[in-house]
């Protein structure tokens, strides 16, 4: 499937921002399920490309021309194929065991541990099957509800709340898998939804677990599915903090920040010949 993606992020300030620096993780990686045809990142400042330890293509964005509006546009085309959610190639330089360590957002506290315990047996019998059961159980437990949580919400909070967005589902899934000694990682990226006619207000996030002999298997817990050709990943990491599309600081613009995001993912149909 050929997907055409436009991802706009705009920050608006009441007072001018004099300097800012951000790490952007907005460029899709290449692997068995996705091939980048063309891709650009545009921003009002200077971009320096680097690769982080997880193998993500990052840009450091510096803006030092004072302004009250900053718009970042990532856009391009990606050719995807369905690998039933399995990615055999390990693209980063981080050892798989790294994905066992808990982070503040995926800490296996008592709530998480209690939730994980009943799945231990299934996991020890068959990891992949266990992971499917965990994914289903999480989705049954946590309603999809937008705007009820934010990026600071931890897996444990989402479990206790019983509601959240795709990011919360991913964090809970990761926390539970790690508690059961399955390496699990966070993926941020884009999702093509066939019947959506308006751009989405945010990107998408899901998770992947490492199954020895198979590779990384993607789980979109929120949508009760494994990865398909509708998914384009841009960054992987331990959790939202290390895989988020952008993170930075600014100097100036002390007043409130208004953020608007639009993500447009369309299938690009080849003209009928």
């Amino acid at each position, binding site marked *: 499937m050929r997907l055409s993606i436009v991802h706009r992020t705009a920050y608006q300030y009441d007072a001018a921002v004099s*300097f800012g*620096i*951000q*790490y952007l993780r907005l460029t899709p990686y290449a692997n068995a399920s996705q091939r980048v045809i063309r891709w650009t990142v545009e921003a009002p400042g*200077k971009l*320096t490309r*680097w*690769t*982080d*330890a*997880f193998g993500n293509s*990052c840009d*450091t964005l*510096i803006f*030092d021309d004072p302004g009250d509006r900053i718009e970042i546009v990532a856009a391009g085309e990606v050719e995807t194929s369905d690998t039933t959610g399995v990615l055999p190639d390990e693209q*980063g*330089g*981080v*050892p798989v*065991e*790294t994905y*066992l*360590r*808990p982070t503040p957002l995926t800490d296996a506290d008592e709530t998480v541990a209690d939730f994980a315990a009943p799945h231990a047996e299934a996991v020890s019998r068959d990891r992949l099957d266990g992971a499917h059961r965990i994914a289903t159980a999480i989705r049954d437990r946590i309603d999809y509800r937008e705007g009820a949580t934010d990026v600071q919400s931890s897996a444990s909070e989402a479990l206790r709340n019983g509601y959240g967005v795709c990011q919360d589902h991913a964090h809970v899934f990761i926390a539970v898998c790690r508690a059961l*000694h399955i390496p699990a990682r966070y993926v941020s990226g884009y999702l093509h939804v066939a019947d959506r006619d308006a751009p989405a207000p945010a990107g998408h996030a899901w998770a992947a677990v490492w199954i020895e002999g198979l590779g990384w298997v993607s789980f979109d817990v929120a949508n009760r599915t494994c990865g398909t050709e509708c998914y384009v990943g841009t960054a992987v990491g*331990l959790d939202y903090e*290390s895989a988020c599309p952008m*993170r*930075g*600081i600014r100097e100036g613009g002390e007043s409130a920040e208004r953020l608007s995001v639009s993500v447009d993912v369309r299938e690009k149909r080849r003209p009928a010949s």
Partner: protein
Amino acid sequence: MTRFFDEMSLPDGEVRGAYRALAQWLEDTPVERLKSKRDEAEMLFRRLGITFLVYGQEGGAERLIPFDIIPRIFSAREWEHLSAGLIQRVRALNMFVHDIYHEREIIRAGALPAETLLANALIEPHMHGLDVPRDVYVHVAGIDIVRVAEDRFYVLEDNLRSPSGVSYMLENRNTMMRLFPDLFASVDVQAVEHYPQELLRNLRATAPAGVDDPTVVVLTPGSYNSAYFEHAFLADQMGVELVEGQDLTVRDGQVLMRTIEGLKRVDVIYRRINDEFMDPLVFRPDSTLGVPGVLSVCRGGRVTLANAFGTGFADDKSIYPFVPDVIRFYLSEEPILENVETYVLRKPDDLAYTLEHLPDLVVKEVHGSGGYGMLVGPMSTAGEREAYRARILDCPENFIAQPTLALSHCPTFVDEGIAPRHVDLRPYVLSGETVSVVPCGLTRVALTEGSLVVNSSQGGGTKDTWVLDS
């Protein structure tokens, strides 16, 4: 009762060779003169402002670390043994850090368990696959040593993140030379004043590839930090700029310093700020101490941090028991310095043994430092042991235990006169062009009679440390 090794005298009371001149001098010097010299020393330290801030006290009180005027002395032969062991250990630890962030051969060879190691929160994922100049991660190491017998030196702890105290080592010598020029005239003590130049040479040697005349800076959290004096001292002695995070900025894939002549590139940052505060774009977002974007410059190979990110796992108390194996694995040599036998309470057998032998053991928190939160068995009351036992059982993996070491003692000038007090030693090992150690160290002394806790935060003092020429 334990027999403690006496640094100055042999069991029959005869003075060791290295201490002979000092012993004679002490005998010739009236106590009144020693007292007046001690007061003079204190005045010098106060005037120079060699103070440290005591956290937790109101207003962050500035305090002097007590200085003892009687030096601790090593013969050339003793030092040769000790320094060879230190250099060996730090070489191996540097190779260990490199290996963990690259091929992980030590894990493949089965010498260390993969999961406990790689899931260790002190391993910095962002260091994986990153090459650093000359493969040096630990530019400055402070290795804590205790002596229990003639040729038996134990390593108590490796400090591989941002060890402090070297300014005291240098100022102690400086003060001693001012106070007792006559003493130095009669004894050949190896010089130590070149430490800052050695540090600078090693820092420059690890500048990013292609930089001819590297700019080195010392990065401090600021003038409110307890070790600010030391940061300013080292920058001053090396003749480099002392900067705070706000003085540095990242542009065009480089770290730049804000000067009165505009932005100037910085190549090597000797930083005295912990990893988690260094880059708010990856670590703690609320940190105002660090340099936003510095990680991207590190990954691009355009700046050297000393010490590198992610060295903390290698001095973690949970890794400590493996260090002798680390030395054997990378160097195919037997360790010259001994490790203290360590019970890892995560292991049920070790836990059981420890709980049975609490009165004989020292129990420490895995992530603790500065002598806080530990139980010194032989010095503890039954009540303290019971309280500690509960803490251990609550979370055994947070603790390790070691036998109580019979720390050597050294004559010390205290209120009662000259009396033995227990000492340890922190030498500073530098890596860069080579691995080296200046012939000195910071000797810490427990000023309370019988005490084995030498930490300055717990009422310890310091002494000048002499290594004799021959």
